[in-house]
């Protein structure tokens, strides 16, 4: 038994890795990014939008959204790549030639003007390439033959791309070493930002800026931007979103939420108790009602009572839970016609002022309707399984033997029939778990219970990647554990099954 459990637990690791990879790819390959702001496409931005741009850049950097997803080949970028992206923005800023009349200098025909979508993409790309293109940007800036606007753009980008990364901006408190590093980096970044050219700067002034500040700075820091073969291999695999995420995950760090900048694990820890208590109570309730009901109905197979119960259960099974939830909410909470139950929430607010008993009562009061809505469908299918389970064994020889040797009817049914008939229903426990963890989304949304389902729903609407990843991974883990437990419970009920 122990070896079996250990084997199963070890098997969970590759499964979870696979799950992590799948969710990660789904999230990251989807178009759009969280926190994407409307990017202004004009070449030189006003100071305000530059600030917004900068904070968006830092946001991307902190959440690794500037990195490629699986593999990083950015050390191969050439000056031509960078130049073409910057050129797009220069083109975009040129005036469009009017159909008639005098044509302004350097104007572009309408059909050659790049679309704003292409420009936004180019801006993002140059920004995301980060420190990998610093040498290229410097050489473009120093190229006196190039267009002045192009060179200015190169320097503007340089001022952000060349900045040093800060360590763990959000989330944990930085250690003293990290803080020192951050302080130094901040100082240098400040300096780099100060070397940004202004829109009105003349060519001479700009040349002076590049020659006196940027070129010497680059010469001094050159080793930072040169990569050896070994570096390249390491960058190829490790300087990616996936590698960073998995590295953090291996330290059980699920990252921080994009929305409230708090570690998602803490948030989920707070939410788990609502979801788990709701699911467990609902499973418990479903089993407690459905097993006796199924047994009773099987025992009276074919009678009118059995037919009625079967029909009612069948109808319950076909009723969608959100419909029932809306109906009971309308009937029992708004005061028309009844105001018996609260409209939503878990009822554990105001814990300081209430005694434990009062609090329990409040929770129970809040949970009546959600539990009802969560339980009835599971109840319907479980009783049907329980009924078939008992029907399968009730005509078996050993039941006849038990009766023949004079055992009382309750003993025959409970000890012999039920125990054997319940084995199939135990397997269902395993498959019920993911349904209950996942199926509670709607109930949690309707009844406003702050559990995992509601959190996932809100995170998806906000595109909070780290939160979604964490919720899915943790609920998958719970499901795996649930499956293991249900397999083990087999062996407990049926002595013929052993795992050794």
């Amino acid at each position: 038994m122990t070896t079996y459990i250990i084997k199963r637990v070890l098997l969970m690791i590759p499964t979870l890795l696979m799950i992590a990879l799948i969710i990660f790819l789904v999230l990251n390959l989807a178009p759009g990014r969280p926190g994407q702001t409307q990017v202004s496409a004009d070449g030189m931005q006003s100071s305000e939008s530059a600030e917004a741009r900068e904070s968006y850049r830092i946001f991307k950097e902190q959440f690794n959204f500037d990195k490629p997803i699986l593999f990083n080949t950015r050390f191969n970028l050439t000056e031509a790549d960078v130049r073409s992206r910057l050129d797009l923005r220069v083109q975009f800023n040129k005036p469009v030639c009017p159909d008639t009349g005098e044509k302004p200098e350097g104007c572009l025909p309408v059909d050659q003007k790049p679309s704003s979508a292409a420009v936004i993409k180019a801006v993002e790309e140059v920004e995301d390439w980060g420190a990998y293109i610093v040498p290229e940007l410097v050489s473009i800036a120093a190229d006196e033959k190039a267009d002045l606007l192009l060179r200015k753009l190169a320097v503007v980008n340089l001022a952000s791309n060349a900045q040093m990364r800060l360590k763990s901006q959000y989330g944990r408190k930085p250690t003293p070493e990290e803080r020192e590093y951050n302080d130094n980096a901040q100082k240098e970044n400040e300096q780099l930002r100060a070397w940004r050219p202004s829109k009105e700067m003349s060519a001479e002034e700009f040349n002076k800026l590049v020659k006196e500040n940027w070129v010497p700075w680059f010469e001094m820091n050159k080793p930072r931007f040169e990569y050896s073969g070994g570096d390249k291999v390491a960058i190829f695999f490790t300087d990616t979103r996936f590698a960073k995420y998995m590295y953090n995950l291996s330290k059980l760090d699920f990252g921080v939420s994009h929305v409230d900048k708090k570690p998602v694990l803490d948030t989920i820890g707070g939410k788990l108790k609502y979801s788990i208590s709701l699911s467990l109570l609902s499973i418990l309730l479903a089993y407690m009602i459905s097993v006796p009901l199924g047994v009773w109905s099987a025992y009276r197979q074919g009678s009118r009572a059995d037919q009625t119960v079967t029909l009612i259960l069948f109808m319950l099974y076909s009723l969608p839970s959100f419909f029932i939830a809306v109906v009971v909410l309308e009937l029992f909470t708004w005061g028309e016609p009844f105001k018996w139950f609260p409209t939503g929430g878990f009822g554990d607010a105001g814990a300081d002022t209430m005694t434990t008993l009062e609090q329990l009562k409040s929770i129970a009061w809040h949970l009546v309707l959600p539990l009802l809505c969560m339980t009835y469908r599971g109840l319907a299918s479980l009783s049907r399984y329980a009924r078939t389970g008992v029907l399968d064994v009730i005509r078996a020889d050993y039941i006849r033997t038990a009766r023949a040797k004079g055992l009382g009817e309750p003993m025959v049914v409970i000890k012999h029939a039920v125990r054997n008939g319940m084995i199939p229903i135990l397997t269902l426990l395993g498959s019920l778990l993911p349904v209950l963890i996942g199926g509670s989304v709607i109930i949690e949304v309707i009844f406003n219970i702050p559990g995992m389902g509601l959190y996932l729903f809100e995170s998806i609407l906000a595109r909070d990647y780290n939160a979604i990843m964490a919720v899915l991974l943790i609920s998958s883990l719970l499901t795996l554990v649930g499956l293991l437990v249900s397999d083990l419970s087999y062996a407990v009920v049926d002595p013929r099954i052993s795992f050794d």
Partner: protein
Amino acid sequence: MATDSDKQISSSLLPKDYKTYGEIVWEQFKKYKLSYWSLWGVAALFVLAIFAPLLALNVPFYISVPEGTGPASVAGVSFPWFKALFDVNFFESGVDIFFNSLIFTVPMVLAAWFFIAPRWKKSMIKDKYKVYRTNFWLVASGVLLAIALGVYMLQFSQPYVDYQMLSKADGVSSVYPLLEYSYRDMELNSVGISPNSAHWLGTDDRGRDVFTRMLYGTRISLTIGILAVAIYTAIGMVLGSIGGFFGGRVDLVVLRLIEVMLCFPSFFLILTLRGFVEEASVFHIMVIIGVTGWTGIARLVRGEFLRLRRQDFVQAAIALGYTRTRIIFRHVLPNALGPVLVSATFGVAGAIILEASLAFLGLGPTTAPSWGQILTVGRQTKLWALILAPGFAIFVTVSLLNLVGEGVRDALDPKMRR
């Protein structure tokens, strides 16, 4: 024509009351009265879905406009209803265009069948008739699909005319469908009306007739339910048969894949996938349900394959040197189809509930009149008609499908044979 040689073969090789497996199952199925009538109920739902525009559309069948009234293009007698059916600006979703083409093609196919079937029956021996019957329906469904797709590919569109406004003008005579409403156009001066003789189920928060929306919602629910299940049945059957037939390492990979999919709480996965499609269409929703739902079918088919592979007739086929493809498709797969059919029937019911749940959360197809979306509006506006109508519709559809599924399951089970 029945030739002598045909008759000889059939009389020499087969017993007189010979029945195919399909016929046995069908006869059994007919004995489950409730399930049998539920099948007719499902057919009735399809009739409602197909012929919805006959009952409710805000475009007249016939309109006669005197010269000088309204735009010049509509002057004289015209039949806008027929044109509107295939107008991609009027019915934006491909699902609607598809069903609209069925309004004409389905009656034609049925008429052809009732014309030709008695003649075939008279002139042929039973076995040949059965082959012809099967071929007729295969060809007919192919033609239906091709016409529907062709109509959609045409991308026919015409300038918008407000016929309802036009009909009120002097000298204009027109004949409308019974309900003069669109499921889409908002009527801001008739918001939240409770059920009456004009609006059978009232109107919603944007003044749209709820009955019309429910009617067209049938199309959405049935399409998503059936096609999503078709997608996942296909995926599951391919993966399951590969794993079950080849066994060994291939099987291990398939099993791992199934296990990985199984331990996602499926609704979480669906929500996540849906969250990353902006402006989801009906098509997106069914693909999302399709790619997440295949594990059950794959496990089922894999199990059937493992069981069947060891049986004598498959071993005989292998010994005869048939190709793998032939063995899989001609010998094993047909025998594994029964349980798949049962599972798929229940699956359609499940997919309809899933779609409604997504729409209820506001994550359904964005422009389609989905039942779940109507229920959400009902919850927001507290109009009972908007809560009860979609709930009841989902309940009825799902019950009918579940009853059919039960019947098929019992009919396929030799132990339950009556």
